[in-house]
């Protein structure tokens, strides 16, 4: 047999730099082919037609100070309406001299949210601080103790209601969701059937129907004489809905965990509860943070539905403020303000989720 000839370089070759990527100019990107050119021209045409009118309505003819008559005369955007009504939209029919309390609640919740964002702050102390925040918010809004004037829940309204409903339904719904997810994967057929049935029924119904069912059924199903707060009924419906959707997400996370984790834990002698607490749940939840934050955004948006059961949240207060006969129904400005507040909250949550994803995946990727 002939010896195999090997080719071995005598001298190593220099590594060349990669070829420069051809950067497309803006013109090339906009008019690359026929479809792209048509799209560009169409968009330019639409913007050219509508932008001057929007600017004229919002800025040039916009009324920044004045009253309803000035708005009617000008025919432009009635920003003066927002300046006159912003306290009603933000706080509802809360007594005006006590409105520092809901404002403080909003500031408290915002501060706690910003505090909880860095991952180094994810400790048990922060959890306790959140519990204290919820209790403090309820006390501040309700009053009756610590020298605060009592305010019935029927008078609560605006942004604090939206924030409270979101936080409470998430806080109570998430542990419930973990229980439901574990129950759906349990070995005993009864627990599995119960959990599956509950999740599928709640997810199959529209939230509006759930709110309606809660507000009609709860008074009937409880003994005569026990009165249920309207806020509490809405909270039950929102919590159940949050729990069902979060349970599906957590179940996805539990399914993604390799079985070897649980087996290794039991080989080391950990009990089922310890395995869950230390090994399974942290990994499962970390794996599904993007869908969890998506569901959190949905839960924030769902709180706007409570206007059908008579609660005064941010949107309901905005809609009620339009009923003032002194002003020419500036619906666009009001709904724009309400939409901007919701957008700020929801967009913030989605951006935060992207930030988390980037930083958490780096730990897993090797």
């Amino acid at each position, binding site marked *: 047999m002939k010896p195999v000839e090997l080719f071995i370089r005598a001298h190593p070759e220099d590594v060349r730099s990669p070829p420069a990527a051809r950067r497309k100019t803006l013109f090339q990107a906009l008019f690359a082919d026929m479809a792209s050119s048509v799209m560009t021209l169409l968009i330019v045409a639409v913007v050219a037609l509508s932008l001057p009118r929007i600017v004229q309505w919002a800025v040039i003819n916009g009324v920044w100070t004045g009253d309803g008559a000035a708005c009617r005369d000008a025919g432009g955007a009635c920003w003066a309406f927002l300046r006159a009504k912003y306290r009603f939209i933000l706080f509802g029919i809360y007594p005006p001299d006590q409105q520092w309390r809901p404002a403080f609640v909003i500031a408290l919740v915002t501060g706690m949210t910003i505090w909880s964002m860095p991952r180094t702050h994810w400790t048990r102390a922060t959890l306790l601080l959140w519990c204290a925040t919820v209790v403090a918010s309820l006390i501040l809004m309700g009053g009756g103790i610590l020298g605060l004037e009592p305010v019935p829940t029927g008078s609560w309204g605006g942004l604090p209601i939206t924030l409270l409903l979101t936080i409470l339904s998430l806080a109570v719904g998430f542990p419930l969701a973990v229980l439901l997810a574990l129950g759906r994967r349990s070995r005993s057929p009864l627990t599995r059937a119960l959990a599956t049935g509950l999740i599928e029924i709640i997810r199959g119904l529209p939230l509006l*129907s759930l709110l309606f069912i809660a507000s009609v059924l709860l008074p009937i199903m409880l003994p005569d004489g026990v009165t249920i707060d309207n806020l509490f009924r809405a909270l039950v419906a929102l919590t159940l809905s949050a729990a069902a959707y979060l349970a599906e997400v957590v179940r996805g996370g539990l399914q993604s965990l390799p079985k070897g984790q649980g087996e290794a834990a039991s080989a080391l002698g950990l009990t089922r509860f310890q395995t869950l607490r230390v090994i399974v749940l942290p990994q499962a939840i970390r794996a599904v943070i993007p869908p969890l934050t998506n569901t959190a955004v949905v839960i924030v948006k769902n709180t706007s539905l409570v206007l059908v059961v008579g609660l005064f949240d941010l949107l309901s207060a905005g809609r009620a403020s339009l009923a003032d006969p002194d002003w020419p129904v500036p619906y*666009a400005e009001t*709904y724009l303000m309400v939409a901007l507040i919701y957008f700020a909250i929801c967009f913030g949550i989605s951006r935060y989720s992207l930030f988390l994803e980037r930083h958490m995946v780096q730990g897993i990727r090797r």
Partner: protein
Amino acid sequence: MRGHARRANLQSWLPQAVTLALLAMVVAWLVGNTISNLASRGITIGFDFLGRVARFPISESVVSYAPTDSFAWAFAVGLANTLFLSAIVIVASTLLGFFLGLARRSGNPMASGLATAYVDATRNTPLVVQLLFWYAAVSYGLPHSASALNPLPGVFLTDRGLYVPRPVFGGQGILFLCIAVVVLAAASIAFRRRMSRPVIVAASLGLLVLGWWLTGMQLSLDHPALGRFNFMGGMTLTPEFVAVVLGLTLYSTAFTAEIIRGGIDAVPSGQWEAARALALPEKDLMRRIVLPQALRIIIPPMASQYINIVKNSTLGLVVGFPELNFVTATTINQTGQAIEGIVVLMAMFLTLSIGTSLLLDRYNRRVALVER
């Protein structure tokens, strides 16, 4: 070994039995409370109220309804309204979402930037806010009947509604429908058998035209005309319906666009590269290589998005569109039969959503990639 197995059995059924007993106790307590509360209000439990006369008006419906019809028919009308609204929104949002998804993926920075801005803005605002905005725009922003907007010939837009010409069919309508069904069934069988497509299309069209002529069908348009106070004739779409369709379509389009974009992105890039290496034209690349594979990934989330559209249609209640939830609420208000009304409501929605989930399951199992 047998002793261990028996102990395992006891361990498994004892907690289950205890849970069942506790659950039964809680349910019995709730049911007892319900019965005593209803009895003290003089309300009997039973579904015979469905046969009684409804006596409340429904402002618009796809099928004809009068307050002298029964409660059961009122429920059917509510369901028909919900399904009609959902069908229109599903079709519109799928079509628009397809184009929006493509625009977002395109290399044109203006188109993709605008599409991204639209999707972000719509998905991060509650649907109720958007619906109330569109309802206010349709009610306050549109002119009165005297100075109606006329975007297309025969179409008028006022604050009292959208008026479009109504198609009036003359001739043997049922016979023509039977002929059309037969022709379409034959065409779909021929399609499956992979016969020549242009021949199938030409033959079906020819047969349909022949059937149209044979059954003596005529199509005329009943145009809306401005009467003294309002438009007469034609088809009226109320401001509530227009607002709900507009708001719900614009909201759902953002979600369907994301689903379609995700599906197209999930097709492996090797497919694109191979097609381009074979010099396949771009439009064939989309139509014959990418989209069929993307469809498998798109259909499950799209089906749940369709269920979401059906569930979101209940928000028509907020602007006054009489869908199923509204009819149930009015019925419960009038008769006090809360439990039965809620059972009917739950049954209808759960049938829709769980039925669609089961169908989707069967479809998924059929088209799932067979892996070893």
